[in-house]
């Protein structure tokens, strides 16, 4: 119907001078934007199908292609923007919930960009990481609450189970199902090479990846997919997923079309059935129930593995985190409202939750006020985009960060935010064998290792500049941060002074 017509948001611009009709674009576009027209003897495109993933642009050997934002426009209106109008048309046409993927793209404040990092001058020497040891090794888990000594007076090693990270960055939970086998293989191999961890997400652990167990965090989510005793014991830690930053308060849905043989076996559900994760865990309706699940998992893993509880950053996150810290969890993971997803209702992704910077600052401060900050480690995610975000996160109080989107970008993701279609041209968010093949884990592993190694270098340079030679001396060291352009309220919540103070 004409009323449903929406002009494409992006246009494919092809330079006919440059195009040699090699048809690589045609072969590489799972959305079937490009085709070779025999009659005209040239390439044509249907931009209504284009998701702006840049696969064609990246592979075009003569740089004949580019994707531009259309200048087609509705009559300008600050209130009823073209996007808003189009969404009404789509919903009027379909009666459906709008779906999106990856993180919240809306123009909310990004507090990382309003924080500045300190450096030493005169009174305190900066440290050159190329000349002096610079330690980014960290351990996650509860710290011993009492010093014990044996009959000789020697310290007893009563350290609760810890995760040990060579670099304070882990790959956040992304299930096998939401991302491909090769994406998981890349993450598992890179985590092992880097001495950190990746996270299975709620999709279980493929039998091929048990070999990477020492660098795997296995997740238990509300759908309990793929959870069994061997699974819990296969990883280095178990994460209970209570919420996700991209869609706090709701569950997940992996459509049956993606549940092929392998995923069906890994998730322990019949092939072709939808995998539905309920919004809550139906055995956790309150904090005391969480404590029971934490200890059930500890029993099942013989108290040898730290238990992580992951929550979305919501309004009363500090109080929730305090409850979790007292529930026996060893690590709290907090996911901010910019966190990614394979699919989420657009309205929820774009309107629910709070920025991770504020959530982290509030949680860290609350746990300190209650004197229980050393009972748990705090890991945050939800749009850590660079090593400077990482430094700021640690200075605000995080023990380590989770990265999801940045890791996927390293694997080739171009943030086209169309994961929910299952036709990822980069072989990441898809289960189609011909597309999955596009991500060679040899390349993926190398690129992830490169990314984290470069961040680690930058982290060390910034730490050295501050005269800090160990990551634990940066943790919660908010004097190393200053705000710019923030209100007093924001500064108070972040616990930092304004630049110049």
């Amino acid at each position: 119907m004409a009323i449903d017509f929406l002009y494409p948001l992006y246009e494919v611009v092809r330079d006919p001078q440059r195009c040699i009709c090699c048809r690589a674009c045609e072969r590489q576009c799972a959305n079937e934007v490009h085709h070779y027209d025999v009659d005209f003897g040239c390439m044509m495109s249907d931009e209504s199908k284009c998701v702006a993933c840049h696969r064609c642009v990246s592979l075009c050997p003569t740089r004949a292609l580019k994707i531009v934002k259309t200048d087609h426009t509705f009559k300008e209106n600050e209130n009823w923007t073209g996007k808003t109008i189009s969404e009404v048309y789509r919903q009027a046409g379909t009666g459906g919930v709008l779906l999106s993927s990856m993180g919240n793209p809306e123009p909310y404040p990004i507090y990382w960009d309003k924080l500045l990092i300190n450096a030493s001058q005169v009174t305190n020497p900066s440290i050159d990481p190329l000349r002096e040891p610079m330690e980014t090794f960290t351990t996650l888990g509860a710290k011993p609450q009492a010093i014990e000594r044996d009959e000789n007076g020697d310290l007893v090693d009563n350290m609760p189970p810890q995760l040990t990270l060579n670099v304070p960055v882990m790959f956040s939970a992304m299930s096998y199902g939401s991302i491909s086998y090769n994406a998981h293989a890349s993450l598992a191999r890179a985590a092992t090479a880097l001495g950190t961890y990746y996270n299975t997400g709620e999709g279980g652990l493929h039998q091929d990846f048990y070999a990477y167990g020492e660098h795997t965090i296995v997740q238990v989510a509300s759908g309990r997919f793929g959870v069994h005793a061997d699974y819990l014991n296969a990883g280095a830690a178990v994460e209970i997923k209570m919420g996700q930053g991209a869609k706090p308060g709701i569950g997940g849905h992996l459509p049956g079309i993606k549940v092929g043989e392998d995923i069906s076996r890994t998730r322990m559900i019949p092939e072709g059935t939808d995998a539905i994760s309920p919004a809550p865990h139906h055995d956790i309706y309150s904090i005391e129930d969480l404590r029971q699940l934490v200890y059930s998992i500890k029993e099942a893993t013989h108290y040898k593995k730290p238990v992580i509880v992951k929550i979305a950053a919501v309004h009363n996150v500090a109080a929730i985190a305090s409850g979790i810290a007292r529930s026996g969890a060893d690590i709290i993971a907090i996911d901010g409202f910019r966190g990614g997803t394979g699919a989420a209702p657009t309205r929820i992704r774009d309107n629910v939750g709070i920025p991770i910077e504020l959530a982290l600052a509030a949680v860290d401060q609350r746990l300190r006020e209650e004197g229980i900050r050393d009972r748990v480690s705090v890991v945050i995610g939800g749009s850590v985009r660079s090593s400077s975000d990482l430094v700021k996160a640690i200075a605000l109080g995080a023990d380590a960060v989770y990265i999801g989107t940045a890791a996927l970008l390293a694997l080739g993701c171009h943030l086209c935010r169309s994961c929910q279609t299952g036709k990822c041209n980069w072989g990441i968010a898809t289960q189609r064998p011909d597309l999955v093949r596009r991500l060679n884990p040899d390349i993926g592993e190398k690129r992830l290792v490169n990314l984290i190694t470069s961040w680690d270098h930058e982290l060390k340079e910034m730490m050295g500049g501050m005269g800090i030679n160990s990551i634990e001396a940066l943790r919660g060291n908010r004097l190393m941060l200053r705000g710019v352009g923030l209100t007093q309220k924001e500064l108070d919540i972040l616990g930092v002074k304004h630049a110049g103070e």
Partner: protein
Amino acid sequence: MRREGYEHIPSGCAISGIFSRSGEAIGGETIIRSIEPMHDRSNGLGGGFAGYGIYPQYKDYYAFHLFYDDSAAKEACEAYLSRYFETVACGKIPTRRTPSITGEPLIWRYFLAPLPHALSDSQLDEREYVVRRVLHVNANIEGAYVFSSGKNMGVFKAVGFPEDVGRYYRLEEYAGYCWTAHGRYPTNTPGWWGGAHPFALLDCAVVHNGEISSYDANRRFIEMFGYACTLKTDTEAITYILDYLVRKRRLTLEEAAGVIAAPFWQTIEAMPEPRRTRAAYLRKAFPSLLVTGPFSILVGFEGGLMALNDRLKLRSMVVGERGDRVYVASEECAIRAVEPELDRLWSPGGGQSVVVTLDRKGGA
């Protein structure tokens, strides 16, 4: 400018310490002579001393030294203290008029014994009971500041060069088995008497030269355990960390040094067992108490003295020995000034703690 205590204050400094292993009483003038040659390491914005074994006649009582801004603060503070302590003796701390020392507050000294019923009602051990009173006064009673609270020891400090401060307090009239001294070079403060070093809690008195880059990480951690870092100085934070680790968590001083100036992981990896496990344990157990950035500190405590450098040794510190005497100072000249002939002179490595104690308990 804002008064000290509102923001974190970095400073460079001079430190010196003298210790008699046999417990011989060393006159206060000796430590003044030691710190004096390092005049240029201070800028006249703070100097101070701690003497141990100086109050033998009151050795069983907590010796509180207080600064008061005015008599109202004194009244409020004394009213508070009287609810918790019996005052065995009290009076102004004797001083000598010294032209270069100005702006003095009221300086009072009290010898206190906890009131038995108040102590038992509090259900705290005695030292914790005393600490809480000290922290309360410093955080909550405007214009009153407890700067010394140990038994048979005392801190004397002021705004000025250390040698002037020592003469102002007539230190030649005191004698003890251990002295530490500090000359301050703060970089962004008008100088406040309470902000001078040593910084003390109970019998633990710390003098410190350096600027710790881990300050806010340390502060925010230690404040979980009831400490209020009201001065915002590194020394205050280090004192509380030591109090927490040694008094509350019952680590030995060497173990506490292994937390504060923890060995690098690569050093730990190369250690033989069981040292490796112990070192790794301490680092993992108290990661937020690792102190980074340059520092050399002297920690006086009942019956002993500890010297410690940051793990990269970014501040100078030398140790000299002669007979039963041990000397520690930022510069060798401070040692030679009082003991030209030494049996041994050496420079401890980064993170390597040097602990000396009395040969016999309670030697003084």
